[in-house]
């Protein structure tokens, strides 16, 4: 089979999320590539939640509307998603909850009854139906066991038993072969960001929960002991970023994570970080706004906000990774850049990237190492804001002998003491801004800041950023288009971008927003797009949907 998709759905609280991880892992172990799209409303129990687990022989990072199998834990799932099925009757359902009309079709499993017989709690319905799925896909039961052990360590024996009951009650509907491909780890974008930050030397992660970035907090809190991290959840986002700046003042690499509303509260300190030249990495997980908006859905609406947030003028490093490998790579690079140039970095993520599940191929990640910032040569007097050619002053830290480390939110002299003199102000403003030139050169020379995929000879380009990377590549390859994805968005890698678009007759921009934010950004640099394919209902593009919209404009 070339590719294969499963949709599993039910109410929030049914463990749909967990189920999709289990199914993903299972199919992953068969050698397929995996991508999981999660769709859930902002509530804890009830409502309608579903995941689409897509597998393919090729690398993928997008979902399709059409699926091969639907697993329905409730009636709503079947009603809503039945017509996604490629073949009419390929669905599995809880026969006690779901009434199938017209003709007997699909495969019903009496979950409640089976659970009762095993004295298992309701919450194990999902394990039971996954057992049934394993048989339905023509797989052996034993491959599920190990996956369950990894995913549900609690009450594993009962879970296995329950899954086996489902398996036994089921029958083969379709045959999935395992293929001879090495299985890669599965990571969410948020996990990849977290690991990338650790790779970059993270010592303290501070965050106030906010979808879609909270999983970074949860994950880092869980693995804090393994890496000797300080993970803190204080009173508010204002407290968050100021604590992080306290850590970085002490020479401890810190990062924070939030979404738009929380980022708003951090903007004052973003500006402070720039003035005081305190390195900081901010994960900004985008979701539809304005305001509270749709907390559990996705958007790409904060590009210009990130570019311009905070009073005054200063340099910032902004990246928008497009999948797990890039999330890992650029999170590490962000940390390095923040410390090398003593500037804030912003990792622009979104719900689709952060909570989507991707294969992670570390061998495809470029060379990476934690870099040491420029340190003071220990010759007193120490000047925290020493004027230098590239604007970067060597660092010393508290407890260093003979160094008095003074940072300041006011305009200040080289020692960090407040000044209001016009000449001193001018020089310090120039010092701050001078870094940009060196940063841009650094990026341009040492990094692939703009990626190119698809048909490189095509005269038509698909321009995308962030989580639209995967779908754009897939469709670019399918439709014979060149795909251009700038990963570094500030300072904008103009030269690389120029190379990427040179020779194109037509540029089609794909974004999850209503105004075309990347299109506007490149306009400042003298580039124009011909078409914009925008989506702003909070959901990610499906392959079919975007393909159709591309074809429409290509007509």
């Amino acid at each position, binding site marked *: 089979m070339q590719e294969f998709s499963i949709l599993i759905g039910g109410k929030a609280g049914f463990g749909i999320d967990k189920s999709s991880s289990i199914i993903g892992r299972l199919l992953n172990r068969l050698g397929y590539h995996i991508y999981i799209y999660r769709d859930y409303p902002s509530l804890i129990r009830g409502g309608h939640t579903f995941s689409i687990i897509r597998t393919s022989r090729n690398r993928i990072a997008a979902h399709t509307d059409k699926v091969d199998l639907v697993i329905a834990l409730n009636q709503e799932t079947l009603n809503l998603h039945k017509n996604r099925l490629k073949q009419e009757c390929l669905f599995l359902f809880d026969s006690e909850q779901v009434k199938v009309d017209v003709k007997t079709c699909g495969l019903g499993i009496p979950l409640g009854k089976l659970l009762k017989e095993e004295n298992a709690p309701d919450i194990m319905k999902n394990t039971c139906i996954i057992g049934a799925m394993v048989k339905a896909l023509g797989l052996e039961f034993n491959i599920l066991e190990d996956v369950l052990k990894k995913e549900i360590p609690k009450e594993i024996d009962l879970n296995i038993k329950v899954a086996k009951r489902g398996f036994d009650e089921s029958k083969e509907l379709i045959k999935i072969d395992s293929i001879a491909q090495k299985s890669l780890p599965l990571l969410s974008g948020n996990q990849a960001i977290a690991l990338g930050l650790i790779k970059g030397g993270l010592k303290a992660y501070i965050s106030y929960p906010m979808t879609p970035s909270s999983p970074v907090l949860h994950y880092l809190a869980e693995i804090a002991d393994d890496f000797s991290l300080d993970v803190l959840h204080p009173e508010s986002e204002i407290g968050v970023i100021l604590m992080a700046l306290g850590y970085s003042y002490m020479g401890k690499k810190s990062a924070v994570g939030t979404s738009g509303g929380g980022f708003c509260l951090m903007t004052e300190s973003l500006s402070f970080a720039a003035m005081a030249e305190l390195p900081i990495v901010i994960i900004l997980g985008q979701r539809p706004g304005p305001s509270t908006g749709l907390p559990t859905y996705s958007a790409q609406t904060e590009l210009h906000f990130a570019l311009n947030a905070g009073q005054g003028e200063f340099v910032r490093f902004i990246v928008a990774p497009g999948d797990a490998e890039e999330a890992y790579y650029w999170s590490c690079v962000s940390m390095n850049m923040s410390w090398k140039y003593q500037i804030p970095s912003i990792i622009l993520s979104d719900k689709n990237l952060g909570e989507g599940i991707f294969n992670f191929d570390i061998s495809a990640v470029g060379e990476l190492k934690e870099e040491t910032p420029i340190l003071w040569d220990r010759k007193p007097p120490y000047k925290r804001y020493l004027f230098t050619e590239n604007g970067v002053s060597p660092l010393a830290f508290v407890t260093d*002998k003979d160094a*008095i480390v003074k940072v300041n939110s006011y305009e200040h002299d080289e020692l960090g003491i407040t000044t209001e003199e016009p000449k001193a102000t001018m020089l310090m403003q120039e010092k701050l801004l001078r870094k940009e030139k060196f940063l841009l050169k650094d990026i341009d020379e040492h990094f692939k800041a703009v990626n190119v995929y698809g048909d490189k000879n095509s005269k038509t380009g698909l321009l995308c950023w962030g989580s639209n990377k995967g779908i754009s590549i897939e469709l670019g390859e399918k439709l014979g288009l060149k795909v251009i994805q700038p990963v570094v968005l500030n300072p904008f890698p103009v030269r690389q971008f120029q190379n990427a678009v040179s020779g194109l007759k037509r540029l089609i921009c794909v974004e999850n927003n209503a105004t075309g934010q990347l299109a506007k950004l490149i306009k400042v640099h003298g580039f124009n797009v011909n078409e914009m394919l925008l989506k702003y209902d909070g959901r990610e593009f499906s392959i079919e949907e975007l393909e159709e919209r591309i074809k429409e404009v290509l007509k």
Partner: protein
Amino acid sequence: MNPIKLGTDTQNTWCPGCGNFAILNAIKSVLTELHSEGLPLEDVVLVSGIGCHAKIVDYINVNSFYSIHGRVVPPAEAIKLANPKVKVIGFSGDGDSYGEGIEHLIFAAKRNIDITMIIHNNRVYGLTTGQYTPTSPLGFRGRSTPRGSMELPFNPLEVMLASGATFLARGTSHGIDLLKRIFKEAILHKGFSLVDVLQVCVTYSNLYEYYERRIYELKDYNATDYNQASNKIREWNYNNDASIALGVLYKKEMPTFEDRFLAGKTTEPKDKDLKIKQILEESI
């Protein structure tokens, strides 16, 4: 121990007669004392907000973090957590920490994290030219309240006590000896300490005589008795005409946040990459 130079070459821009000078002198003398008792000055960090009070860090030749308005506490907490051996002293104003940033004070007290907050409580926004603050008396005529402020002040020590602070004291800017004693005790207290300094602002809220008539120093007082402390703290409510007690009002030994937080802390893994590799393997 070498003689130390605690001053900087910066020109002091406080008004002549400002109560901040007393705070500056007191803290310099306490730092000198602590230094002579063995505290390396490179292990001290001063944090300040924005306001007249905050300029103090420009005048002391010690590590400092000149923060933004209302945000003295969170960096102070982080600095402590990043290196618990560091002595962190925050200087803040009544506008700064009782107004704009009160939430941080409450949470630091709740956590009982070992930092010292010195509040230059002049009961006015000095640097922005004289508006009422959370501790200005009812009816205070400031530039934002020309008809007089319409709110009672709160009692910051009462709020701090309710929030879990384990060291609370009050001094005034015209009693420098007491200030020195209190500052030292506050800095040495293990846990969250706050000193409310009734600092006279000669320009916008000169309460020198008002205080002179009411203040008295605590004698024969057991600061570890919660009930006594609670009553003493509420004796003067920053609005009425009661006597004003000075000294250490409350003191309690409690586990600190950093003790709890850093207790289980492991040392950094030698091979971080190996750990990451393991995690990846478990994700297949």
